[in-house]
């Protein structure tokens, strides 16, 4: 399965079909959102109701974890969910592959989650207080904290990549071995798996960010006491 075939080059950089698919998703989402939010009103129609429902549900999910920073985290987390759902389901379209079936893509998203955790932690608490929690409860645990940060980021990338790639691979193998219509149940499983994996990835990112911020809250409370 060749998923990183270079479509064309921009200078020394080879643009793969995965990147083109991602651009397509971005373009589609951008146009759709622009068209859907041009004429918003206080008395919503069906499309506005759908959009408000999606965003309200996302905001409510974030509020459960971080009640005071839901609006701040909403763009990042909700974009993760929306992009991952669409990217995961793109594999169902013939001749297209899910971008999330590529380790480069999931690694990039995991890197963004990793950076976001530290960004929000430092932004809200200061670098000193944020780095302090790596030394708590004892400096001896610093290596374990560092290893934890690295492994959970790698796990985040590999989990999503492995699940989506394996679904596509299994469907391809069943299609080759059994025939044209046999992989349909697997494709239905693909839909469920795509939704679940998107939710897991976004929720884990939210928990990681919230964990960083809340650990600092505890630290601050301890300092105040």
């Amino acid at each position, binding site marked *: 399965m060749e998923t990183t075939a270079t479509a064309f080059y921009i200078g020394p950089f080879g643009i*793969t079909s995965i990147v083109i698919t991602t651009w397509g998703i971005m373009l589609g989402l951008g146009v759709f959102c622009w068209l859907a939010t041009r004429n*918003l009103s*206080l008395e919503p129609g069906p499309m506005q109701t759908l959009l408000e429902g999606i965003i309200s549900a996302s905001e409510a999910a974030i509020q459960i974890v971080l009640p005071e920073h839901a609006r701040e985290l909403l763009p990042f987390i909700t974009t993760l969910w929306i992009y991952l759902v669409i990217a995961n389901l793109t594999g169902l379209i013939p001749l297209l592959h899910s971008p999330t079936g590529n380790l480069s893509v999931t690694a*990039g998203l995991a890197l963004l989650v990793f950076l976001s955790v530290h960004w929000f932690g430092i932004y809200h608490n200061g670098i000193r207080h944020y780095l302090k929690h790596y030394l708590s409860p004892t400096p001896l645990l610093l290596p374990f904290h560092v290893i934890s940060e690295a492994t959970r980021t790698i796990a985040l990338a590999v989990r999503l990549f492995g699940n989506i790639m394996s679904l596509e691979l299994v469907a391809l193998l069943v299609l080759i071995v059994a025939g044209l219509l046999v992989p349909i149940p697997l494709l239905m499983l693909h839909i469920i798996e795509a939704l679940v994996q998107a939710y897991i990835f976004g929720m884990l990112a939210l928990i990681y960010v919230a964990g960083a911020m809340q650990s600092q809250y505890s630290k601050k409370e301890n300092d105040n006491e």
Partner: protein
Amino acid sequence: MDFDWTTFTLEVINFLILIWILKRFLYQPVLNIIDKRRADIDQAMADAKRIEAEAVSLKKQNEQYLIEWENQKEAAHAQLAAELAEIRKKKLAELNQKFDEETDRRRILEERRRIEYEKKIEEKAIAQGTKFVSRLLSRLATPELETHLFALLLEDLANLDEADKRVISEAVTDHATSILVQSAFPLTDTQKQTLSSVLCEPYQTGFSIDFQCNDTLLAGFQITVGPWVLHANLRDELKFFSQPLQHEK
């Protein structure tokens, strides 16, 4: 499982751009409209609570007004009842006074009617009695009775007091009037001569005497000398008898 750094880098950049796109064209407009709706809802809720508070306040105020109004109504009702009782008492007193006056007036009127009725009855009884007696005496009026009454006439003429004699004298001399002697039965010549002599003797003068019969006298005589009249008959006696009875009433 190959890894491409270019794809990795572009994917990071693409995702950051996607965040910006969605934030610009999806999150901000939708969140703004949601916030606006929430603000409107909050405003409506605040207005509703304020209106509810005002309604509660007005309700309490209205209840207070109702209580005050009820008290005022009861006080006015009591005052009205007292005034009505006073007016009723006054009117009742006036009515009792009028009733008493009307009762007195009716009593007086009834008493007067009764008296008049009794008077009428008595007059009727007297008239009937007089009629009865006159009828009875008319049956008893005989020449013998006339003779006895003639004797009584002579006796009365003989016993006239000085005032009567002076009146008769003045009537005879001043007016040159003749003497009218009415009798129920015709007088005999003897009786006429006797009566003429009795009448003329005291005055030493002669004058004419006119003798007439008048059966309405029942029995007896009536002598008229000018304004002086001597009643010596049953009719006039009965009249004299009945008049005092009427005058007594």
